[in-house]
């Protein structure tokens, strides 16, 4: 192993610090903004020094925004709850459907298997607006418009192909010999799948679930078109702070901090799986 000289170490430290500042400064600035009033944020020139206020967070959590012309109602916490429900349930449903499917595509050769797998992937290529209007009409006819169930169903367009294709790659990387050995020992197919295949593929499944959760969390257009205001996620709800009478920068920043918290926490928690799962699934021999 080569030793780095002091100069190289210093240079490396500086470069890492610069990269960190470059990537983290916007987030740091948003956090600072979330503790300032609009007037403080819009000061010219901007300043790092201010008297912090919790007013933005209080408004979001209580749902009451005090303005010059009275108290306005905010639905941000409802939006946050909606995002949580839609993303979690969509990913859970996709895992139930896509993991066995991915296993089947990876392990068995059957008629039209590649065509079916590609069709499922092609859902990711379709522009959402292309499918949304017909879906709106169908949903209204069958009573699924403006329901969580209907939205979770549509969210499968985002989460299902992603999980299926990442996990399929992962299953293909695991040698089938281990499964064969377990089957020879007299265990059923189902038991092999649950006891051997899934535990071995867990990093890949976790990475795929996390990624699809982030995609689902960031989705904007499905709920906007298919549901009423009370089912909207944070991505739509956060725009409510941009009104004709002004932009509530402080509340937008506080909303951004609150809304990235779940995905950030999940990403930190699953960081190990994410790197391992993505790199193993992506680099196949």
């Amino acid at each position, binding site marked *: 192993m080569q030793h780095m000289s002091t100069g190289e170490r210093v240079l490396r430290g500086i470069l890492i610090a610069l990269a960190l500042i470059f990537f983290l400064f916007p987030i740091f600035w948003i956090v600072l903004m979330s503790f300032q009033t609009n007037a403080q944020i819009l000061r010219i020139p901007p300043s790092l020094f201010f008297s912090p206020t919790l007013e933005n967070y209080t408004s979001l959590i209580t749902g009451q925004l005090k303005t010059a012309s009275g108290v306005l109602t905010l639905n941000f916490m409802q939006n946050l709850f909606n995002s949580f429900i839609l993303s979690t349930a969509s990913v859970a449903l996709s895992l139930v459907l896509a993991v066995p499917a991915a296993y089947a595509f990876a392990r068995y050769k059957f008629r039209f298997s590649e065509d079916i797998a590609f069709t499922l992937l092609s859902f990711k290529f379709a522009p959402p607006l292309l499918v949304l209007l017909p879906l709106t*009409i169908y949903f209204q006819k069958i009573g699924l*418009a403006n329901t969580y169930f209907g939205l979770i169903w549509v969210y499968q367009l985002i989460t299902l192909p992603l999980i299926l294709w990442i996990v399929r790659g992962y299953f293909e990387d695991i040698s089938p010999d281990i499964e064969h050995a377990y089957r020879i020992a007299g265990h059923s197919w189902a038991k092999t799948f649950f006891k051997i295949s899934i535990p071995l593929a867990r990093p890949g499944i976790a990475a795929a679930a996390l990624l699809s959760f982030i995609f689902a969390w960031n989705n904007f257009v499905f709920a906007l078109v298919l549901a009423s205001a009370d089912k909207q996620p944070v991505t739509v709800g956060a725009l409510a702070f*941009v009104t004709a009478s002004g932009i509530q920068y402080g509340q937008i920043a506080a909303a951004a901090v609150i809304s990235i918290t779940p995905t950030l926490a999940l990403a930190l928690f699953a960081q190990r799986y994410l790197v391992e799962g993505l790199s193993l699934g992506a680099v196949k021999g």
Partner: protein
Amino acid sequence: MYDQERDLIAALAGHRIGRRDFMRRASQLGLGAAAMSGLMGQMASSALAADSSFDWKAHKGTTLKLLLNKHPYADAMIADLDAFKELTGMDVTYDVFPEDVYFDKVTAALSSSSSEYDALMTGAYQTWTYGPAGWLVDLNDYIQDSAKTAGTWDWDDVLPNLRASTSWSGVPGEALGGKGAKQWALPWAFELNSISYNKRIFDQQKLEVPKNLPDLMETAAKITKDVSGVYGIGVRGSRSWATIHPGFLSGYVNYGAKDFTVDGGSLKAAMNSPEAKTFTADWVKMIQESGPKNWSTYTWYQVGNDLGAGASGMIFDADILGYFQNNGDTKEKGNIGFHAFAANPDAKEPTPNVWIWSLAMSNFSTKKDAAWYFMQWATSKEHDLFGAVKKDMVNPVRQSVWDNDDFKTRIAQNAGYLEQFKASEPGAKIYFTPQPLFFDVTTAWAAMLQRLVAKELPVDEGLDQLVASIDDQMSQAGLQ
């Protein structure tokens, strides 16, 4: 206490006391601002209910659903909604969507023939698409039906240019409000374009408010040169229809220029007429010399923020944009002044283009008659006055509100606002030629303005290219 409140409301509704007396006596009863707002709403419903020839309870028990944009006008209506419920016995639910995505939601709901919403907020330009497509109800049928419309509603009290600007025959090129025009929407509140300026800076620099475009260019250049960190004039510049419709079009038509010439149903782009070239050349020069540095990204929000933060000396944009900066949580609160503006030195009066937030009825509603009751109430004198006096429902669309003393007292806190309105209002209307490619044409127009300001093309050549491109689009759409 309750009896005293009730008697007080009854006295006002029965015109036994004036509004000023009402306010004084309410304050003697120890009623706070919130309670006063509630009382005003109740008073409004009592006054409407006093019209005994009209049965406001005809649709009692019906529930309506509204599609609303997150806007001070919608907030004002929601604050007063209990008054409507009490007056009619109906219930109202609503979906409020942010403005950025609002029209996507409206288009999706209407194009899918959804019966979910009974009434909705819309701009007048959008009705040029929604109306002829059969998505909206022609409200003339209701307005002219005395059985369905209260005598006290008084349609003629709504400013005539706004009534005309929200009605159109659907024939491309035919004048708004002309013969056979369908009333696609009811004006709710609106904005016209004039100068909002920073009085503090103008006083410090001993500047006069500009009266025309050459004057404006000179004043803006002086501010940019003499006031550190401040640029002269804020106008919009993003690649969007919204760049064309405020100050730009208001000045453009003041020079006698038009967007199209109409000849026997054929629309010919006219952005390269001599008048259009003269005005556009000056406009482009003004932005290059005294506009914001990243003008091509400027929308309503940036123009307003800069004025409120003291980063610009003035704006030529919606009067209510200046109003919100003057009354909101901004650094320059109370420092903004207002002035009418005729860009052409030879023009007799200003010609501000307008944006009108309006209420329309979905053609897919299954409760149209009940929806009409809501629309009547929401555009009534009483609610318009409530919104204008107690909330931020400016500019009101009714003459009676502009004549009201309480409203005048409130608006007088904004220096020059009433005067600019009086000078601008006679010429304030939509100056675009109504046609179905409105958004495509205006977006292309804004894109060309960006190229001209960036000096990619000389103004004459750029406008000739723009006309050729728009004529091509019109021809392909069968409009030539």
